């Protein structure tokens, strides 16, 4: 067996696992817990919501107590925000929650600004506006974006900690729909690229790692499985396998370049 030290870093914090796991859509807290144990992720995403005051403490069955936050790094997301202002507000709340769990240095925030209720596509302008503000306030932003290499480049220049281009629509399990753009984003970025959303099966996760992604975030594919803890374990090994494949031959990734349809000669600029 080849033993490989293959850590990756975000803001000088090192992680072993290149799998991030979401906590949404699980039938029970117990299944969430078992899946997280089986997948051994580096970070776990959570959403921020009002506490249901009509339920008692036992019924609320909190993720706060179900997961060992001393061992797992929380990545709060701004899911539910349609505007930059809403995302900013959720960002500060997420930071306080992480702090209350003893993660004082945790400034990570998965930034989702989604006004599109049908396809759940991220709003690029809202994302840039919120990222700009939150970065200046010390947050380490993981922006959820479409597979737009130019947008990705702007967000990296702004100071985002990672990039999170989508594989396909949230919850769709459709896999990687725009491979070429994902490859371009991976090639041009100097910060970690985490493929998020749409990874439906372990082969999708493996593919993402084979083309050089630094990590993947998976939620629905695990949570909606009949045996989520088995799917979680499968994803763990798929990520490892894909990563080993990439490391064995990183130069094998090829990207088709564009060609201009108008002449360069005579351009005014």
């Amino acid at each position, binding site marked *: 067996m080849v033993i490989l030290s293959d850590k990756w870093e975000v803001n000088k914090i090192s992680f072993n696992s290149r799998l991030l796991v*979401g*906590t*949404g*859509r*699980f039938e029970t807290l117990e299944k*969430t817990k078992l899946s997280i144990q089986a997948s051994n992720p580096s970070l776990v*995403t*959570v*959403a*921020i*919501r*009002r*506490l249901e*005051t009509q339920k*008692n*403490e036992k019924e*609320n069955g*909190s*993720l*706060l*107590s179900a997961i060992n936050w001393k061992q797992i790094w*929380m990545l*709060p*997301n701004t*899911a539910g925000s349609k505007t930059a202002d809403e995302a900013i*507000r959720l960002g*500060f*709340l997420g930071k*306080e*929650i992480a702090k*209350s769990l003893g993660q004082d240095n945790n400034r990570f925030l998965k930034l989702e600004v989604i006004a599109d209720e049908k396809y759940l596509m991220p709003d690029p302008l809202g994302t840039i506006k919120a990222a700009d503000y939150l970065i200046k306030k010390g947050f380490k932003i993981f922006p959820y974006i479409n597979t737009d290499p130019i947008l990705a480049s702007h967000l990296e220049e702004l100071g985002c900690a990672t990039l999170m281009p989508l594989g396909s629509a*949230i*919850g769709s399990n459709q896999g990687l729909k725009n491979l070429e753009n994902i490859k371009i984003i991976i090639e041009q970025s100097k910060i970690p690229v985490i493929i*998020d*959303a749409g990874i439906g099966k372990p082969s999708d996760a493996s593919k993402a790692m084979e083309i050089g992604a630094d990590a993947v*975030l998976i*939620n*629905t594919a695990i*949570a909606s499985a009949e045996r989520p803890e088995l799917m979680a374990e499968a994803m763990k090994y798929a990520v490892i396998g894909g990563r080993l494949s990439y490391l064995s031959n990183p130069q094998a990734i090829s990207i088709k370049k564009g060609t201009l349809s108008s002449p360069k000669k005579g351009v005014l600029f």
Partner: protein
Amino acid sequence: MKKKIYTNSGTWILINGEVYITNYTINLDQLFEFFNINKSLLITEYNQVILKPLLCSKTFLGSFDRIEFVTIVGGG
């Protein structure tokens, strides 16, 4: 505390987006008790300012105050 607005008397407070009316002077700790909430499981926003837990006993609710009890739930 009455939940819905039907009279003009009492202090109106917005808690998690719902209107409550109280005829008493209460602080946030008493509000946690009323809802049977463990405050270590949440973050409290008081008029859009995140409140430190130590300040809850000293924060008395006034008319049209907006309180949000926030926690984490499953998300991707």
